[in-house]
């Protein structure tokens, strides 16, 4: 497959100083395989603009420099304290003045965006999927750290590689993610005759109907919110055989008859089994509803459970914690899926202390430090590589097992295409979520899916 056209494209990219994204666009336009071009480009040692900065391995003199870190506010206070302590400890050891800022996570992208435009701001930024792709030109190449790190930990999971790297090249170092599983009340399920959590979506809706009649419906956010609504809608879409786009990244595969059927089932299920005000919920609403005993089950991170177990003065609810368990996502005709994307730390290219930032990340990702951080978070973050899954924090409470199990059936946003700008646009426009919202509002599965397909066509099909 060593096409002359690939060589031509590589030299074209070199002479015109294409960014990686432009190369990929050209490759697609010319009908070439994106991964092959990418590999050829890397082999030719071409560094696209923004990727040029390579640094000597030996740490420079860090004494007296500064490091500023930007991340999202932690749900688990102990985790945030642990991170602060690690940063401070490293700063003291190296004589570096360190600081860290946390913002509410929906505000994170505004801060990163403004910093990139201004070319000044934090040295190290927290990245969620698919941001490493979006900001790749402004993130320092960290293949030299991430590569060995992944290998040492048993190799990064496939979903991590797909969502945190750019075509296999690391611009940030992944550490895992917080993700969703079904949080449910076993006693309520038993009352309606379900000894275990249902294994298929249809069974869940059937059981849910009885639960709703009992006054404890299922809860699911379907509003504009970037956390909970995608976990459900993407999972359900895939379970019924539809995808945003085929592997080529341009052929929309959304309007599938199986999916229309599945959507019909869901429209009925929504009425029968769910709290229908979910159309307005944001990421916090299901937590509140569950903790105030209004729901029998909802999809969420482990924050509900961990909060319920906490001290009562901080909102802990011991009786609900005792009667809470977690379950895998149900499956549909096409299988069991969930949306999963890695979070990572990246270094900004405009930083005037890239060496310091690298040095800190090397320290933070060292086995001991990363382990202590996973432990401080009480199992809230699932790790990016398998070797950490044997930590006691993941095994001692069997109720949390489904969260770790996610890694076995997770897919990236924009699947089967790459986690790129189109996937980000589709996600930010809430296309998949709104397809579901429209369907339950209008009761028209076919119409909603056609609307979604048309929107996806605009995004992917250019």
């Amino acid at each position, binding site marked *: 497959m060593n096409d002359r056209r690939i060589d031509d494209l590589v030299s074209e990219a070199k002479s015109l100083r294409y960014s990686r994204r432009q190369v990929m666009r050209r490759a697609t336009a010319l009908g070439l395989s994106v991964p092959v071009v990418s590999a050829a480009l890397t082999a030719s040692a071409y560094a696209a603009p923004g990727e040029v900065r390579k640094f000597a391995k030996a740490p420079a003199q860090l004494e007296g420099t500064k490091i500023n870190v930007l991340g999202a506010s932690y*749900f688990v206070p102990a985790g945030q304290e642990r991170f602060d302590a690690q940063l401070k400890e490293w700063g003291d050891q190296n004589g570096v003045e360190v600081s860290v800022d946390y913002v509410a996570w929906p505000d994170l992208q*505004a801060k990163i965006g403004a910093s990139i435009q201004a070319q000044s701001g934090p040295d190290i930024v927290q990245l969620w999927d698919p941001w490493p792709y979006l900001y790749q030109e402004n993130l320092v190449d960290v293949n030299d750290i991430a590569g060995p790190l992944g290998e040492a930990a048993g190799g990064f999971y496939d979903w991590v590689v797909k969502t945190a790297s750019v075509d296999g090249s690391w611009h940030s170092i992944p550490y895992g993610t917080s993700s969703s599983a079904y949080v449910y009340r076993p006693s309520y399920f038993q009352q309606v005759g379900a000894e275990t959590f249902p294994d298929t979506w249809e069974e869940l809706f059937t059981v849910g109907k009885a639960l709703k009649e009992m006054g404890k419906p299922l809860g699911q956010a379907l509003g504009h919110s970037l956390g909970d609504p995608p976990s459900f809608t993407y999972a359900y879409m895939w379970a019924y055989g539809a995808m945003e786009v085929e592997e080529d990244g341009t052929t929309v595969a959304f309007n599938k008859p199986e999916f229309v059927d599945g959507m019909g089932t869901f429209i009925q299920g929504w009425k029968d089994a769910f709290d229908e005000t979910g159309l307005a919920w944001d990421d*916090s609403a299901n937590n509140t509803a569950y903790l105030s005993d209004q729901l029998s089950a909802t999809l969420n991170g482990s*924050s509900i459970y961990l*909060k319920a177990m906490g001290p009562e003065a901080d*909102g802990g609810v011991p009786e609900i914690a005792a009667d809470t368990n977690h379950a895998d996502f149900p499956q549909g005709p096409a299988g069991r899926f969930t949306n999963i994307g890695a979070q990572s730390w990246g270094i900004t290219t405009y930083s005037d202390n890239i060496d310091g930032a690298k040095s800190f990340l090397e320290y933070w990702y060292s086995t001991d430090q990363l382990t202590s951080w996973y432990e401080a978070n009480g199992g809230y973050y699932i790790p990016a590589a398998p070797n950490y899954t044997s930590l006691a924090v993941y095994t001692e409470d069997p109720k949390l097992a489904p969260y770790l199990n996610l890694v076995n059936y997770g897919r990236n946003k924009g699947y089967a295409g790459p986690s790129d700008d189109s996937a980000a646009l589709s996600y930010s426009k809430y296309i998949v979520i709104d397809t579901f919202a429209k369907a339950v509002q209008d009761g028209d599965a076919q119409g909603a899916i056609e609307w979604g397909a048309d929107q996806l066509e605009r995004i992917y099909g250019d």
Partner: protein
Amino acid sequence: MNIVGENRWWQRLLYFYLPLGIFVVLLLFPFYWMLVVSLKPNKELLDQSMNPFILLHPTLRHYRYLFQETVFTTWMKNTIIVTVGATTVALACSIFIGYALGRFKFRGGNVMGAAIFIAYLVPPTLLFIPLAQVVSKFGLYNRYWALILTYPTFLIPFASWLLMGYFQTISHELEDAALVDGASRLQAMRQIILPLAMPGILSAGIFCFTLGWNEFLYALVFMGTGNMKTVPVGVVSDLIKADVYFWGPLMAAGILGSVPVAIAYSFFVDNYVSGLTAGATKG
């Protein structure tokens, strides 16, 4: 002003106290809710069995949390510095613009007046991105000056308009007398017109102060690092943790962030109104 023919008690009740009461209830209702939440123990907040508007066991816990677990006083200090600074800059600029537009007849005056209005039409939600570049070029990133100099962009238009109207109402005679006596335009302005315009300036100042006090996006993006957060930014960043809202402290911060200002306003409000009056009745 006492409208004639409303001296019977039922007329006063029907035309005055009743509607006023309705306004008070409707406008202060969300505020009352903030107050209740800020004093409610977490357990009661989720309690479905009691009337949510009633406080059974009021607690100052959330206020304590705010002062002990966050750097609320620092946020407050930042907010005050930024707001006072931005108000000063905006007022200084607006006084000159308002004076020129209100008291000079000059070629292009109308165009300038309209242009200032148009500046208001530029939506800040997006333009903070290019603006970030400007802020960084001037080396203002994460300094008080970043906000002190950017807030005036949305304060100057209204303040200039208000002061323009005010300056128009001040007699030219005094100034003329001063000019005849050999005072320069600037002297006359400083010594005669500005003191007379004080109520108008105060009104414009209050307006600027309020808008600056409330701003969120610029404060988040241009400052918002380390100990440089303003109250809204600090509160939202530190009290919304992933998918969990710390309702009590959030609402406590809302109360603490607004009640002192409201009390201060109660002393100025009549000045504010009378200051607006002049500006208000002139275009």
